[in-house]
């Protein structure tokens, strides 16, 4: 089997694992009842208030900012940069390229470095601060290393050893329209793609579940109205 076929199949498998795995987790989170009201107060009294609280958590990491400025800085930098980089990558799977993806393009280029800086900062803390070192498992270090390796291999293709972007885009579009095209054999590209595949495979069984999980956290997503509205669910409904 050729390299192109192997990677095509791997991409399909990884996408299935990612989508089904995360969907399964979301299904479990939503169908598990939360029998009691446990919002961390002060909490919003209304649903729109909760949406606003959540929006602030997602967009600016409000609680983390209150908690620890260094972790906030590195963590927020990484996530915003990652978002930009992901948006920039849409150009490899859209034809014609969506107009706003072109707007992101100039930022996206530097975002790779910002991502690396954020990850580096987080890893440094994990090693240097004794409290954080104590709570880290091997997987916590490896996750950061994996993300850094993805960033480095991506940046290297941009700045060190250009790969055939047109051919890569042909491969990606071919995957989407089930009209397989050859994958350029550039070693940096193969490394980059392999690491991304690995990330997709482990997403649903790792702490990366914090992304969908945050929205289900009862301490953050419940309204503070237990006296006004009788809440029952699960065992408390019996």
């Amino acid at each position: 089997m050729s390299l192109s076929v192997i990677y095509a199949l791997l991409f399909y498998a990884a996408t299935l694992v990612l989508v089904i795995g995360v969907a399964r987790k979301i299904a479990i989170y939503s169908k598990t009842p939360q029998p009691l009201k446990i919002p961390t107060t002060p909490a919003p009294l209304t649903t729109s208030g909760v949406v606003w609280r959540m929006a602030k958590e997602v967009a600016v990491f409000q609680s983390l900012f209150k908690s620890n400025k260094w972790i906030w800085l590195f963590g927020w930098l990484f996530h915003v940069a990652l978002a930009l980089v992901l948006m920039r990558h849409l150009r490899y799977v859209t034809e014609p390229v969506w107009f706003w993806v072109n707007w992101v393009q100039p930022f996206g280029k530097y975002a790779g470095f910002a991502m690396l800086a954020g990850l580096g900062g987080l890893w440094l803390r994990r090693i240097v601060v004794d409290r954080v070192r104590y709570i880290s498992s091997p997987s916590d270090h490896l996750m950061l290393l994996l993300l850094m390796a993805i960033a480095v291999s991506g940046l290297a293709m941009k700045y060190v050893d250009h790969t055939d972007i047109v051919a890569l885009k042909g491969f990606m579009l071919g995957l989407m329209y089930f009209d397989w095209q050859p994958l350029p054999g550039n070693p940096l590209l193969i490394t980059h793609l392999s690491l991304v595949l690995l990330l997709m495979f482990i997403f649903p069984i790792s702490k990366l579940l914090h992304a969908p999980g945050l929205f289900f956290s009862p301490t953050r997503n419940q309204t503070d109205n237990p006296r006004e509205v009788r809440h029952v669910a699960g065992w408390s409904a019996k």
Partner: protein
Amino acid sequence: MADFQTPEIREYPLIPHIKPGAMAHSKPYLAKPDHQASVGFPGELVENWHDVAVAKLGELVSKSRALQVFLDICVKCGACTDKCHYYLGTEDPNNMPVARQDLLRGVYRRHFTFAGKYFPKLVGAIDFTEEVRDQWYSYFHQCSQCRRCSVFCPYGIDTAEISMAGREVLDAIGVGQKYCNEILGKVHKVGNNLGLPGPALIDTLEGLEEDVKEDTGVDVRFPVNQKGAEVLLITPSADFFAEPHIDGLIGYGKVFHQAGISWTVSSYASEAANFSMFIGSHDNLKRTAMRIREAALELGVKRIVVGECGHAWRVAYSFWNTLIGPFDFLDPKYPAPQHICELTYDLLKRGALKIDKEANDHRRITFHDSCNVARASRMGNMPGGQFIIPREILKTVANNFFDMAPETIHENTFCCGGGGGLLTDDLMELRVKGAMPRMQALKQVVDDNDVNTLVAICAICKTQFAKTLPYYKHSMNMITSLHHVVGDAIVLGGKD
């Protein structure tokens, strides 16, 4: 005083370096078989404890979205590591909230997740060995379930939920904690934590009426089981007995008296506290709360008012409607349940109480926000009312009020060190060390503002401070009830 060192109060708060195992020896007394039986748990360690524990853990997770989500999504960012008063006071890394969670998360991963089943070392999954069981018993009883960590976690992960689950698993295999389970047994049997039977309660309150009459010359009533009263007062039983709690009860009595509100306590439901929450036991939680609904119906009251108690207010405010509601038999004009501070605040705002502020001029006051009021409930009709209302009351009835440092009050408040079912003498070392961050903030207002009065609205906080203040070279009389200060300022008798 004891064979441990009271932590030193430094000039500035400092995040300590970790001292692994520093508190591994801390363990509360085990519940005896009859304590266990009274709350429906096996009397001693069951034979197949490993399997029972794992099964129980799986069951708990499947019934709680909080557990399901919290056990998955912690990213080990470390933001919570310096937020727990027990870590700051003991320096034991297992008292960092995330490390405490990991004691349970590790076992959960080992048995219920793909990564933990096949790559345990990689993801920190652990087996539920005897050693781990001991660690659970030790460190889940070093968490006061104060929820400070959950304020600071980017996902709101609440270690209180974890330690409640941990204690419930331990109870299910027969390893219960004496303090909580013995007390719960008393509530079930007698109606209050102290095990004070009805006739004794009536006696005590009659005595109190005489004392107040002697002091003030006014007939302030403290009624028991009075059918048709407007208000049923549900208050921690400590209020019936000990200083400084009883001064608060006198204050409630004066408020009701002056406002002309008829009220009563119930000898059947003579306890606001509900320790079932501490051990995570739903059956006990509901059973304990149900007495209150029964008493309210039996006495035909129109309102239920809850006295000064932190976790009791959480149970009342957040859980009662779920567990023993709906309260459609009460007067819809008032929140059900209502906190005594909400009631007093409304009366003060309406000018219904005559106040002599100068009566409190000898006091220089600061206010300790109790965890469960601050981070697990509310007062009034806006978020944060639980911070505003007690302070507004204090400023209305006294002239000298000073807040402690902002990072130690409101939702950032530090636990007194004795909450969550840890208020027992066999955990004295933990309690003294856990009080350190609060004592640090207190020292600052004592030094800067000559504060001489620490006001709290929680029976556990009051008892804990009375015991631990002397370790930090303060007088135990410094701590008092909010309604003690209110009561001292109320001018009894006719209104002008």
